[in-house]
């Protein structure tokens, strides 16, 4: 093989890498949820998990180096997700199309996730009677599931919840992750919408 051909082969490989990287990025952008290596492999037409991981990790690095409010994360179960960095959420969440959960249901959800599996009555005791409405809403959105156990209803979060929040599907691991998140959240309270300074500049 001539030197020229080798260069071309390298170039081709580089081209292919770039193209695949772009496809992975496009896939993560369109999905708006964590994707596993199989799905990503399907998009780039490769069955090699290693190849997908290599590409996705290169994407993580690319985003890390760019000054961008977006980030690509690798989750514990080898899934990847593209999302907005949390510190930007408060400023732009109003623009999100999907009606997002308000504070109350989010608190109830956090409580259930942290205490799961938990009896519905206990949630209501801790969060007040309006928690019934939250529980219904959360179940409708597929974030929690209710199972009857005699007269009680046992609540726990779903795999969709784990995916949505980029948390582990393993309850124990998830609880550890949650604890960490809560600690961070309590240190640095979210700025609310009211904080916008419209007189600035």
């Amino acid at each position, binding site marked *: 093989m001539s030197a020229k051909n080798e260069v071309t082969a390298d170039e081709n490989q580089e081209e292919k890498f770039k193209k695949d990287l772009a496809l992975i990025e496009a896939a993560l952008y*369109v999905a708006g949820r964590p994707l596993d290596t199989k799905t990503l492999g399907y998009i780039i037409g490769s069955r090699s998990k290693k190849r997908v991981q290599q590409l996705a990790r290169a994407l993580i690095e690319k985003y890390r180096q760019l000054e961008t409010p977006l980030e690509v994360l690798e989750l514990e179960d080898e899934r990847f997700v593209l999302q907005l960095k949390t510190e930007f959420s408060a400023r732009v*969440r109003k623009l999100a199309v*999907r009606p997002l959960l308000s*504070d109350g249901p*989010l*608190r109830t959800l956090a409580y259930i996730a942290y205490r799961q599996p938990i009896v519905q009555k206990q949630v209501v005791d801790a969060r007040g009677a309006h928690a019934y409405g939250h529980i219904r809403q959360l179940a409708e959105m597929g974030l929690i599931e209710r199972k009857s156990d005699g007269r009680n209803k046992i609540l726990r979060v779903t795999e969709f919840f784990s995916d949505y929040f*980029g948390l582990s599907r393993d309850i124990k691991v998830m609880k550890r992750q949650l604890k960490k998140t809560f600690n961070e*959240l309590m240190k640095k309270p979210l700025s609310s919408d009211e904080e916008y300074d419209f007189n600035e500049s």
Partner: protein
Amino acid sequence: MTETNVNKPFYFRPPWNILFDLQLLERLNPWDINLSFLLLSFLDEMEKRDEIDFRASGMALGSSSTVYLMKSELLLELEKAPLAPEPPSDFIPPPLVLPLRYELTTTTIQNLLEALDNALKTEKLFVLKASARTEIIPPAGVIPTLSAYLMEMEEQMDRMMKKIVALANKGKIVSFSKLAHGLEKLEQIRSFIVLLFLAQKNRVTLWQEENSDEVFVTINGAQ
């Protein structure tokens, strides 16, 4: 000092002074006071001394009732359910922050148009129902239209009556679903209105069974 002691009535001395000194009484635990002993010895002492003092007896009685009151209040206090211990305050985590992600949705213009198709179909139904409603109750003052309407209704009622009689003559139970069988939705609604008119004229009786949507028709008297 001795003089005053001498001048003081005997019941100002212990143990009876409890009954005559309210301040002292309030400082004591009512359950430590043996009222029967106090009162009996007070009466004995009075008899012994031959100093019958109704005012003092009245005060002693008043004080003893106060002691009883104090005792019963204490008892009631015991009756009260003990205060529930403060529930251990559970850690309520802060609200989870939803990660914001863009997500392409699957709804296309075709979905929108199919939805429109559906909405328009049901709209027709609603509009027709509404027009049927307005037909049946023409606004007051439109007498000529009203009488024309009623004339037409008379004809329709006759037609419906014939249908009912025919069914009944076959020995069948007449139900609305049989009468409306094979009719378009609009026609079904119209038929039902005609039935209502027949019922209103007392020519038929409409009845339903509990937990059933079916309306049954019975012919009234001989037609």
